[in-house]
């Protein structure tokens, strides 16, 4: 993989040229925060981009799989598909979020390829960047670290004096023309490697078991009802842990009428398996309804199963990439996967 180098002083010009060429999405300050919370959004000026962010509130999967996504438009004359992707660059994704893209790519491609996601994915150039600030609850340094990120087109690593830029595809290389890139020296490439390796040791939270050990023990703990009750007893069933998760991909599909009352749209929204009616089925007649995961403990367990064991075989590793977003989002402080894993392993 070719490695390039751009000086710090030339980086701003590179961004300016890139932004002028096509839409660029990257980490920026969440406007309502006090400057310490970040989101992925359209970047309109080079100054806005914050490659020193720790973690984004909402994962960048939203770029391909928006929280609300129109699937179809219907009206008196029939129905139309709404797949119409925008050519764009997603810049500054941390490697753990790229690992989440790799998982979603597989899952949305599985059996029935879903182009509502995949077309956005294909139209986007993904440039990862090194983690300059490690977020408080991250544990990617220890958990699932053997699974490498693959789905990015380029990788920017901040080193002294500038950035080392490695390219992995033609899409990644196409960005070179926007800046004064030269070949990276061996020292610069080594410095970049050191930087990325060092980040792995900076997570405050750590998992000491292997994903395989955790998977086996988690599946075997399915019927440990007391443990699931204990772990979930403070759960509000709010689904925040699902909503901030970069690997959650459950959704609901709804129709809505337009103001004219003859046309409208079918759209999907992110959904959350922790919410009470997620697996509820109406039976009608005297049957009432059946809720296949009625108790909070069952739903809490389902999330743990999905993240730690159910999908491991299909994905080649756990469906949790260690970002710690759920830990931050959970008001009663029970969603932290590290705590859940440790409790499961204790038996």
């Amino acid at each position, binding site marked *: 993989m070719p490695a390039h180098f751009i000086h710090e002083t030339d980086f701003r010009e590179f961004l300016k040229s890139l932004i002028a060429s096509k839409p660029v999405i990257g980490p920026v300050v969440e406007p309502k925060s006090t400057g310490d919370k970040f989101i992925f959004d359209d970047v309109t000026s080079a100054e806005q981009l914050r490659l020193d962010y720790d973690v984004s509130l909402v994962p960048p999967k939203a770029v391909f799989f928006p929280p609300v996504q129109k699937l179809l438009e219907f009206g008196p004359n029939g129905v139309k598909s709404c797949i119409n992707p925008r050519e764009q660059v997603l810049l500054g994704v941390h490697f753990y979020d790229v690992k989440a893209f790799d998982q979603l790519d597989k899952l949305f491609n*599985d059996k*029935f390829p879903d182009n509502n996601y995949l077309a956005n994915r294909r139209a986007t150039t993904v440039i990862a960047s090194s983690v300059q600030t490690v977020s408080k609850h991250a544990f990617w340094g220890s958990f699932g670290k053997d699974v490498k990120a693959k789905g990015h087109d380029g990788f920017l690593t901040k080193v002294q004096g500038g950035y080392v830029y490695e390219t992995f595809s033609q899409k990644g290389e196409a960005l070179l023309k926007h800046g004064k890139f030269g070949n990276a020296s061996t020292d610069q490439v080594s410095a970049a490697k050191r930087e990325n390796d060092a980040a792995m040791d900076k997570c405050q939270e750590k998992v000491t078991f292997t994903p395989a050990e955790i998977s086996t023990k988690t599946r075997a703990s399915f019927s440990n009802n007391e443990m699931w009750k204990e772990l979930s007893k403070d759960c509000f069933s709010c689904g925040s842990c699902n909503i901030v998760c970069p690997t959650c991909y459950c959704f609901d599909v709804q129709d809505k009428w337009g103001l004219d009352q003859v046309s409208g749209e079918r759209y999907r929204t992110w959904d959350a398996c922790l919410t009470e009616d997620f697996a509820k089925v109406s039976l*009608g007649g005297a049957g009432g309804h059946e809720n296949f995961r009625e108790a909070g403990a069952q739903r809490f367990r389902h999330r743990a199963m999905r993240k730690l064991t159910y999908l491991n075989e299909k994905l080649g590793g756990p469906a949790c990439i260690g970002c710690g977003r759920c830990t931050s989002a959970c008001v009663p402080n029970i969603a932290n996967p590290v705590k859940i894993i440790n409790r499961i392993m204790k038996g």
Partner: protein
Amino acid sequence: MSNCGNGCSCNDSAIDNVFLPREAEILRAEQVTASEKHFTLKMKDGKGMDFQPGQIAEVGVFGYGEIPLGFASSPTRTHSFDLVVRTVGRVSTAINKLEKGQSLWVRGPLGSGFNLEEMRGHDVLIVAGGIGLCPTRSLIQYILDRRSEFGKFTLFFGARTPKDQLFTDDLVQWRKTKDVVEYHETVDKGDDSWKGNVGVITTLFAKTKISPDTRVVVCGPPVMYKFVIRELAKLGVPENHVYLDLERRMKCGIGKCGHCQINDKYVCVDGPVFTYSDIKHLEEAFA
């Protein structure tokens, strides 16, 4: 940020969209019980509906949404296909207001149906409770249309009351043709006109002899499965010869949205038909 996140204008894109349904014309619509309506449909694009008994379709009305339904007719009857809809929620209520000449929008066939190859040459027993007769009617008609390919064919049907019985024209026929199908029926609660069996569906097992080599299909309300499975175990029917047609909230029908998940299985793509041996270890399979 990207398509349709921010109100782009839709286009007739060449990119396949798995959510795009096809239009089906309602050839016949008949209210068959107080809450169930029987539709006969034909695809308007002329491409037909190439399904296997036990598969499902996502069926919808724009402005209301989609619901998963099992086909209620056999693919051997190629002119049209049948669906039965119980009025339960918003979508089914909207569907059941439609009449002949109007359209439904259909995605499918989806999911995996009954393993016909495994059943051919063997005795078959179908145990259908309530609306469970709808998806199994697909298999019933299939067997009746290819009767010589199967052994003894027994059908158990249980309904709440005589008024809740579905496909009453079929039932009249099945009661008369014992050499073709050995039909046994029951209701939970009879009325003055009812002369037949009263009791839960498992009481029908005493009415006939089921060989252990029978291939058995079970479809009904969630509570029914474990009791029928218990009877089948007593008869010595192997677990991999028991086919369970399950109902879950199959919202997308393509194994993504997560609502129909039983442990690690997606009912909409891995099922809705499973062998008992395939799912008996799944704690969430039985309510």
